[in-house]
């Protein structure tokens, strides 16, 4: 028995969002009499950080502290319409909608502040700490709370804003099949290193090194978290997971968590990630979003690494020990390829 080390690479070009009915999302922002703001969405946060990122985008656009923004989401009865959390579209589509809504709300807030300070709204600025002041004269200032109270109880104004982001539907060219489903693309490159056992066909992950270009990382820790977890999902798809039976009888299908194979905590490997920030012109503060592509490059990179290790090309997922072993036997033994 020999364990063969192999290295494989994959690069991907990943669209942000999709071409379904133009792929719109909406957001509503309003202030409460306390001077805090609520963002109403129906977009889903599955733990990927939609609430954190839309909160940051809203606070930054309004010019208020992030603590002063509350995101109310995940209920399609109370939030405006969203196409959903998929296609890596959350940060880009929903973020843009929140930005538009917050910009409109900021306009009303500045008008209300101008009335209280008896100045022109164009001469006002926010300090990001909950105050609005005359440009160049920070002592001429009013808190967002006092503005909200004045708007609500004195001026009869709602400090609110509506936002929608829509990428117009791209028609398919009937001759060529050509269309333009996305307005921006993220990119990634991943190198996977594996050990392949030529007696058992088992593949063990040794390490991964990756570089992701995903526009501006609005929350770098959340981006890193998603890339680490998503790469694990990619390894799982590449080597373990399938709802299909490994053997011809459907009765051998995995039926539960015990039989459905997934890598456990003992199967993880070191993963070095470099995030390259190239702001997207139409992204909220330049963001595209990591989304699904955190898993995608892992699959081809692992398949290539197995080829590099033992010379077998498996094009059927998951790459189980049985498939590796049958392929090695079919070619009469492992044929390690050149390491580059």
């Amino acid at each position, binding site marked *: 028995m020999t364990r063969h080390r192999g290295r494989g690479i994959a690069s991907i070009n990943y669209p942000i969002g999709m071409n379904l009915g133009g792929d719109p999302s909406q957001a509503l922002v309003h202030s409460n009499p306390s001077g805090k703001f609520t963002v109403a969405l129906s977009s889903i946060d*599955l*733990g*990927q950080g939609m609430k954190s990122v839309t909160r940051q985008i809203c606070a930054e656009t309004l010019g208020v502290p992030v603590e002063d923004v509350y995101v109310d989401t995940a209920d399609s009865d109370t939030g405006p319409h969203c196409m959903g959390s998929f296609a890596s579209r959350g940060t880009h589509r929903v973020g843009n909608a929140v930005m538009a809504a917050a910009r409109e709300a900021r306009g009303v807030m500045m008008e209300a502040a101008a009335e209280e300070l008896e100045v022109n709204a164009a001469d006002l600025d926010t300090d990001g700490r909950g105050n609005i002041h005359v440009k160049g004269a920070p002592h001429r200032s009013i808190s967002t709370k006092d503005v909200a109270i004045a708007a609500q109880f004195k001026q009869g104004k709602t400090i609110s804003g509506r936002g929608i982001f829509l990428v117009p539907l791209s028609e398919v060219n009937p001759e060529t099949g050509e269309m333009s489903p996305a307005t921006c693309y993220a990119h990634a490159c991943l190198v996977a290193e594996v050990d392949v056992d030529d007696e058992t066909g088992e593949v063990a992950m040794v390490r991964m090194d990756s570089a992701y270009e995903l526009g501006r990382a609005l929350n770098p*820790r*959340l981006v*890193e*978290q*998603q890339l*680490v*977890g*998503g*790469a*694990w*999902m990619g390894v799982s798809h590449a080597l373990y997971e399938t709802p299909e039976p490994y053997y011809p009888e459907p009765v051998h299908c995995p039926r*539960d*968590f*015990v039989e459905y194979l*997934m890598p*456990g*905590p*003992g199967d*993880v490997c070191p*993963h070095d990630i470099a995030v390259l920030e190239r702001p997207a012109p139409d992204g909220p503060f330049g963001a595209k979003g990591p989304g699904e592509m955190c898993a995608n490059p892992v699959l081809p990179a692992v398949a290539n690494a197995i080829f590099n290790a033992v010379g077998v090309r498996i094009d059927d997922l998951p790459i189980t020990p049985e498939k590796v072993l049958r392929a090695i036997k079919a070619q009469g033994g492992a044929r390690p390829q050149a390491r580059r």
Partner: protein
Amino acid sequence: MSKIPLQFRHNGREVAIFVDGGTNLLVALRELIGDMTPKFGCGQGGCGTCSVLIDGELHLSCLTLAETVAGRSIETLDGMKQGPNLHPLQRAFADNFAAQCGYCTPGMLMAAKALLDRNPSPSRDEVIEAISGNICRCTGYEPIINAILAAAGGRISA
């Protein structure tokens, strides 16, 4: 079927309930005591999110008959924080981004607590073994392993 009276300690507090014969501990905790921190994942011991401590030992509450814990001491995530302060493990999970969707988190925290209670400075391999009965679908485990090591000794593994 007649009800069975059952008494045990729940996070340091004596509780007395009536259970149907065959009721599992997870159902007793969630539906009769109202402690929703142990989660129902698979109901057959495959995922670990229902993990609780019984007399300090890690158990799957979905596979434990409620009747068998009479007179014993049950710890759940609900009793983990110390007054208004998060337990060091909870703090470390937050600081190390060890939760995404959060569904595995109660079980992971209980498995980690069972480990650190008996072994305050575990190795990375010991941490991995301690959480190997718990499935996480989001994080890729690495942040969870790092959080437990951080809570154990202010160490973060490379």
